[in-house]
């Protein structure tokens, strides 16, 4: 689609979001809770915290819920009755809008989309993705943990967003980059004033600190390098980095219930757990935490990129900020880029 550009006053943006809510959209925005900020459903515009750099968790759960029912079953005798779980997802007719997220979070959508559709089509994901409209706000001031610029994005990138807002004083510039975005604002066009691309302030020249290709180059050749074992002695093997990550998508499939009735579900899972690859025989290909953290790096910066020509990382830095033992992935990736 040809991009369209608009200008909207801060007060009109508020009106716009409030109208979305009253028109039955589920609006998800950064929201203060227990002294931190998380994505959550808002009932009015003022509940959204648009000043925070990034909420503590990503909004991945709106694409890949923590637990998803794949199907429900009931058994009588030798007969098994299976009720497709997809029905419940398509039943969620109410459309969701993610409002006030950052470009890095938005970029995670298309990155995950590749995994869920590269071969078999995962309709659970697709159905949710289809019904999600993403309005992001460009960052002015990334912090030290951010590295989206190195990850082929930027604090002002519109990749993955449907509408990208840029704030200036008391107004916002809106770049509508998808049909979905245009469709969303069309009923409210009176609040927007169409402008040309030239009228939007140009992106800043964001400087890279390191070259991610070099990190990949290191990972290509140094599977057995001591770095992994030494550096990740301080990793305690919790799943925080993977669970707060907007792009980590690994899951587990489990049956829950009894032999009469129950459901098959998929749950979030993490490559940082020893049990992730543990075979029933007791053999585990990834014995140490170093092996497991290496796998996370490999998956993000090598395996995924070799398949899909992009990286499985948007540089949001959540894993670093949330790590209880202060393992900073930006530092790690930079180290690796320097080692080659």
């Amino acid at each position: 689609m040809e991009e369209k550009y608009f200008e909207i006053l801060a007060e009109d943006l508020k009106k716009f979001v409030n109208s979305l809510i009253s028109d039955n959209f589920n609006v998800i925005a950064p929201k203060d809770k227990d002294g931190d900020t998380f994505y959550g459903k808002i009932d009015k515009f003022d509940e959204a915290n648009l000043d925070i750099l990034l909420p503590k968790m990503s909004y991945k759960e709106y694409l890949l819920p923590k637990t998803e029912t794949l199907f429900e079953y009931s058994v009588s005798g030798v007969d098994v009755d299976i009720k497709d779980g997809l029905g419940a997802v398509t039943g969620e007719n109410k459309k969701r809008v993610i409002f006030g997220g950052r470009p890095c979070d938005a970029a995670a959508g298309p990155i995950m989309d590749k995994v869920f559709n590269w071969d078999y089509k995962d309709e659970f994901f697709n159905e949710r993705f289809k019904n999600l409209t993403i309005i992001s706000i460009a960052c002015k001031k990334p912090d030290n943990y951010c590295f989206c610029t190195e990850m082929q994005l930027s604090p002002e990138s519109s990749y993955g967003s449907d509408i990208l807002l840029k704030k200036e004083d008391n107004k916002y510039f809106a770049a509508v980059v998808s049909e979905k975005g245009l469709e969303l604002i069309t009923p409210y066009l009176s609040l927007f004033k169409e402008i040309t691309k030239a009228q939007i302030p140009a992106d800043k020249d964001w400087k890279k600190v390191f070259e991610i290709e070099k990190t990949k180059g290191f990972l290509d050749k140094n599977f057995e390098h001591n770095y992994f074992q030494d550096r990740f002695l301080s990793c305690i093997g919790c799943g925080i980095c993977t669970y707060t990550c907007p792009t980590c998508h690994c899951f587990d499939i489990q049956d829950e219930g009894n032999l009469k009735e129950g459901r098959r579900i998929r749950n979030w899972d993490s490559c940082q757990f020893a049990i992730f690859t543990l075979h029933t025989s007791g053999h585990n290909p990834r014995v140490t935490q170093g092996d497991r953290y290496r796998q996370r790096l490999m998956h993000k910066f090598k395996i995924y990129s070799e398949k899909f020509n992009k990286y499985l990382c948007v540089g949001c830095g959540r894993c670093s900020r949330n790590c209880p033992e202060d393992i900073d992935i930006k530092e790690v990736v930079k180290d690796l880029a320097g080692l080659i």
Partner: protein
Amino acid sequence: MENIYLPKLAEIKEIIQETNDTKTIRLAINGGSIDFLPGQFGEFSVIGEGESTFGFSSSPLRKEFFEFSFRTSGRATTGINGLNPGDKLSFRGPYGNYFDTVGMKGKNLVFVGGGIGMAPVKSILEYCFDERDDYGKITVLYGARTVNDLLYRNVFDDWKKYKNTEVVITVDPGGETPDWTGKVGFVPTILEQLPLKGENSIAVVCGPPIMIKFALKSLEEKMGFDKENIITTLENRMKCGLGKCGRCNVGSVYVCKDGPVFTARELESLPNDF
């Protein structure tokens, strides 16, 4: 719109107790087999106990049933172990790549299996028997720890009946019984005693990692097999089988999609992560 995680229900036709902890289960959907190719696998489960990954062990050309073999060890297999003929088993698949049966045509074939690793080998082996005229000499070498650990004992004699075919069964030293008439020795050792040449030949190897390691060495170094002509199948922990759940990736491959069948050449380029 299709839910790719939704299983089909297959009816159990027959259960063959192979050893005291392994069984082969013969299944049918709508009274017959499904379309699959040798080397592929499926996700099998008793609904309520979780899925488990097994390779098919029957020839896809035998249309009345399809089968897999399993060893009872965890929750899913314990559940399957409790089933009887007539019960339903949930099944997803077939998934993964397969043996290059076309490329094998006209070649001499060597099949090497160890323990329960014989299951996927049996599928391709019986496929080749079913199309016997397409292939050259067939040599089967199968070994297990003890006589009682040998699977498929009921079909060894059938295999021997095919023309131009040599079937060698061996057990590890100490695993023989007084009336054992087969060989005694580890699979790689016995393999080296066989009159095999790498020219115009393809070897299919599957078994425990240590057996694969030494068998590959023997085939390459002693018999002159080219790495492209040695084929094995990998087993990683899998959940979805669809290239999504992220569990089985090694190097830059998803074993469930890009595998499980790999040549020794391809294995060489993978990191030691399986």
